[in-house]
Every structure is written in C-alpha cells, then in structure tokens.
C-alpha cells in the first residue's frame, strides 16, 4: 500500500531526510518513531503531498506522491500535529464543510457527520464552536475530519501527543477498528512505547536517517537492558528488582566513585537489569526501588 523509495529531502542546505526506504502493506499500522527533529513530520508531509522530496519517491496505492498528487489526495486522510479549525464553525459544520469539499452529496452529509462524531465521541459537542474544544477534543475532531471522505490511508502526525491516558486508549481502539476496515495507518510518535501496542510495523528515524524498519516484532527486542545507578544497599535493590514483573535477570557490575564525593560515602553502584516487560513494569521497578529507600541516581534503558 505504501512504498517509500530512497526518499531524501533537503531544506536550506540541510538534509532533513536521507535515503529513506520502507514499506507498509495494506491494513498495517506503521509507526514512525524518533526524537524531535528526526524528520518524522517531514516524511509524513511528503506522503500527504504537502511537501516535495529532493530525491526519491513514495507510492501510495501505486500512485506517486510527487507526480500524481491529484490521484493520491482522495486516498489519504491527513491529521497534522496542530489542527487547523475555523473559529466560526461548530463541530458539525466543520465536518460538513470538509464533506462538501470532498464532494459528499448534501443529503448524505448529516448522517456522515453524526457517524463520525459518534466514532470520535464528540456527538454531544456537535453544536459547540470548534475553538471551544480542548486540544484533545480537537485532535479527535481532526481524526473525524481526516476520515470524512473514507480514505484508504490515514496519515496521523503525533496523534497521541495531546491526549490524556484514557483518550490514548480510546484512540488506540479507534485505530484498531479502522484497520479492521482495511485502512492503512501511518502515525508518528516520539516514543516506541506509545505506538508498540497498536502498530504492526515500525520505522525508527534519527537525524533524518532510517535506523531500523520492519514488522514490529523485528524492531522491538524481546529483552531490553535497564541500567540503574544507585546508592545504598545493593542486596535490597537486587532482591526488589528480581521480584518485579518482567525482570529476567539482575546483576551488579563494579561500582565507581561518585565524582566529587567523599570516597567512604560515595560508592555508586551500577545494576544491570535484563527486562522483557512493558513500560508499566519498568515504572513499577523504579517505584519499588525508591519506596525501599534505595537512592536511584539514574534509571535508563540501553
């Protein structure tokens, strides 16, 4: 469904995207993950035909996003990171306006608008002006707008960013339901953990370069290592670590003196924890260590 071939983009002499090649089959949820400035939004804007690459191309359903924009545009629904709204419109008017823009016949629009508002749980706010919605609600309205013409591919730029945990869960459910309708979804995120529950495929970008891509199982390592630097009783820390869900192995490596501290007090210990749990488990490990009086100096996934 989506094929990106050797895609590069330069802006003001700086390379924003460098030879990106990846693909996602129909019905997949592709998560593009990377820190800020990695090139995620630039890649998504190129896929959305809003930007042009300096080299390479991307195909959506066989159409080039660079040369066949008119064919690509009806196939995609794009949700930007910051949604544009008309302050004078209500939620229902906003969706009806875009439905009209996409040529949906007038007699079909009221039912379509109601269905979409129900899908994103904004039906009760249908007559409210869009500028009175919270950022999370706007995000949901944006998703409804992106779906207004029933596109094959959804391009979502950081859709979880403004959502509270409950709304994130709801959005995940909505996205899963959409893939069951055979829609392909491309979404960006700064965190792999944020998308790994729902994505079938992932691509990791760093400084405009593709670090890794493919089905999620091949991206997410089954075991990760967490490096914990701490002060205090190492045996307590070790016992606690091993009692937490998801911890496969825990061991101490040689301690190193804390810079600038008195040698007698400042032996910094480093514990390596092999881990196959989720981020909630990692959080539970950190909490357990802190509640037991162990002074955690750093807690980092390698």
């Amino acid at each position, binding site marked *: 469904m989506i094929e990106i071939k050797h895609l590069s983009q330069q802006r003001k002499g700086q390379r924003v995207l460098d030879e990106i090649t990846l693909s996602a089959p129909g019905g997949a949820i592709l998560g593009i993950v990377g820190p800020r400035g990695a090139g995620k939004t630039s890649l998504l*804007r190129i896929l*959305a*035909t*809003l*930007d*042009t690459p300096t080299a390479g191309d991307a195909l959506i359903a066989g159409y080039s996003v660079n040369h066949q924009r*008119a064919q690509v*545009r*009806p196939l*995609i629904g*794009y949700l*930007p990171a*910051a*949604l*544009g*709204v*008309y*302050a*004078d*419109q209500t939620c229902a008017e906003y969706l*009806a*306006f*875009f439905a*009209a*823009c*996409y*040529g949906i*016949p*007038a*007699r079909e*629009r009221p039912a379509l608008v109601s269905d979409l508002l129900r899908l994103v749980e904004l039906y009760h706010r249908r007559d409210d002006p869009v500028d009175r919605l919270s950022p999370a609600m706007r995000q949901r309205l944006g998703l409804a*707008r992106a779906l207004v013409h029933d596109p094959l591919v959804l391009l979502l730029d950081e859709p979880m960013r403004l959502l509270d945990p409950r709304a994130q869960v709801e959005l995940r459910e909505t996205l899963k339901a959409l893939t069951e309708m055979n829609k392909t979804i491309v979404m960006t995120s700064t965190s792999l953990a944020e998308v790994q529950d729902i994505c079938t495929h992932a691509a990791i970008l760093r400084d405009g370069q593709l670090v890794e891509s493919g089905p999620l199982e091949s991206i997410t390592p089954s075991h990760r290592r967490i490096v914990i630097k701490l002060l205090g009783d190492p045996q307590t820390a070790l016992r606690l670590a091993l009692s937490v869900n998801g911890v496969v192995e825990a061991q101490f490596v040689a301690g190193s003196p804390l810079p600038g501290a008195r040698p007698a007090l400042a032996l910094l210990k480093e514990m390596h924890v092999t881990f196959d749990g989720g981020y909630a488990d990692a959080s539970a490990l950190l909490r357990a260590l802190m509640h037991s009086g162990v002074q955690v100096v750093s807690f980092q996934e390698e």
Partner: protein
Amino acid sequence: MSADIGLRLNPILVHEFERQMRSRYTHLALTVYLVVVGSLAVLLYTTSFLSSTRTVGSNGAVGAAVFYFLVGVLLILTTFIVPAIAANAISEERQSLTLDLLRLTPFGGGYIVRAKLAARFGFAVLLLIVMLPLFSLAFMLGGVELRELGIAVGIVLISMLTYLLIGICVSAHAKTTASALALTYTIVLSTAIGTPLIALLNAATLFGRLPTSPQDISAVLAVLLDAAINAGLGVSPISTTVFALSGLASDANIWLNVGFSGSAVLPTPLVFFIAIHLISSAVCYAGAVRRVNAPD
C-alpha cells in the same frame, strides 16, 4: 436544498459568505458606511441647492456635484478599503493552519483562489450596490448621463477586481496577514496615487513649457513620452476616472485623444487602464494559484 446549492456554488465560497455575514462587524460596517455616505450626500445636496442661483439647469449642477462626490467615495473605497478585505484571504488560512487541509481536498489552488476572490468581490460589489439609491438622487436632479455612471462604475469594478487579486496574490505569498496588508497597501497606494502624480509631473515638466522643459524633444520621443504619461495615468483608477469623466463632460473621445505634447493621437488613460488592470489581474491570479498549489 441550501446545501445542494452550496455544493454547486463551491463550499469554500459558501463558507466565506457565511463567515462574512455572521460577523457583526460586517453589518456594523455596512450601516456606518451607509449613514456616513448618505449624510454627506444629503449635506452636499443641501449646501449645493441652497447656494445655487435659481436658474434653469441649477438642479443639474447640484446633481452633478452629488454624482462626482459619490464617485469620489467609491474610488476612495476601492483604494483604501478593498486591499484590506483581500490581504487576509490566503494568509489567514495559512495562519489558522487550514490551508493545508484545503489543499488536500480535490480542489486545486484555482478553486480556492476563485472562491476567495468571489466572496470578497461580492462584498465589494455590495458596498457599491448600497450606494445606488444615492446615485438615483443625482439622476433625479439631472446633470448626469447614464454613460458617465457606466464609465465610473466600470472603472471602479475593474479596479476592485485588480486590487482584490493583488491582495490575494500578496496574501498567498506572505507568511502573515500583517505583512500581506502592508505590502498590498504599498502596491495599491503607490500605483493609485504615486504613479499618476509622477506622470502628471513629467507631463508638466516635459510639455508644460516650464523653465526646465526641454525644447528639443524629437517627435518620436514625444509620442513615446505621451504614451508613457497616459499609461501612468491609466494605472490609477482615480486619474483615469477624472480624465474619462472630464472627457465625457467636454464631449471628447474617451478612447483616443491627442497627447500632452500635441504630436499624435493616442489611446486615452482609460484604454491603458483597462489593459493594465486586466493584465495585472491575470498575472496576480496566476501568481496566487501557483503559490497555493506549490508544496511548501
């Protein structure tokens, strides 16, 4: 039913009209505009009527005074108000992050620009239409011919179109509405007021037998300078209207006349005005469409 008409009419246009007419400022601005213009016209009428001697044709002089006043108001409106209503057309969409969403719809840039233009042209024409009862006052008094009104309204409509398209084109290229507004006003005011002033100054210097006038201008150069001066006057709707109406008043040909140098018969500023404004409109339209279609 209305939605069906909306779809045929272009949803962006319908939304623009809704936005204009939902704003209380629109109604307030229209009311204040009518009250001010109407009051000034009545004041002018009263003053002219009371000060004129009661002779045959004195009503005609009052009617002509009211007519010229109203044409002046229209020209001021075109020069000072129209750029303001155009300069936010595209930049506002860009600032509110809706331009990308519109560009992704099956509509091309041409569709978006035409919708923006039509909505604003409609509003500008509305400002013109609400003045028609005042124009009827001038006709009632006499002293004004229908072709005078036709020429004046024609010039106003063409310049409205041009200034709107200049505003929309600048707006499509500008990052913010404020910068679009500043640049649009710079272009419109320099062409509407600056260019004819320079043309008239040149005419006076070259052909007015001033102490600095060169006395040895060749015939060909004189014709070229004449054409340039007429073109300079034709850039502005204000100078074009003044020359066209004074030509009509003196029963002169409003399309061809003898130039300032007296050396040849040339197209009048009105002809240059039509050509310059229509070409400028086409160029600005193409520029705006190209920018809206262009990826960032």
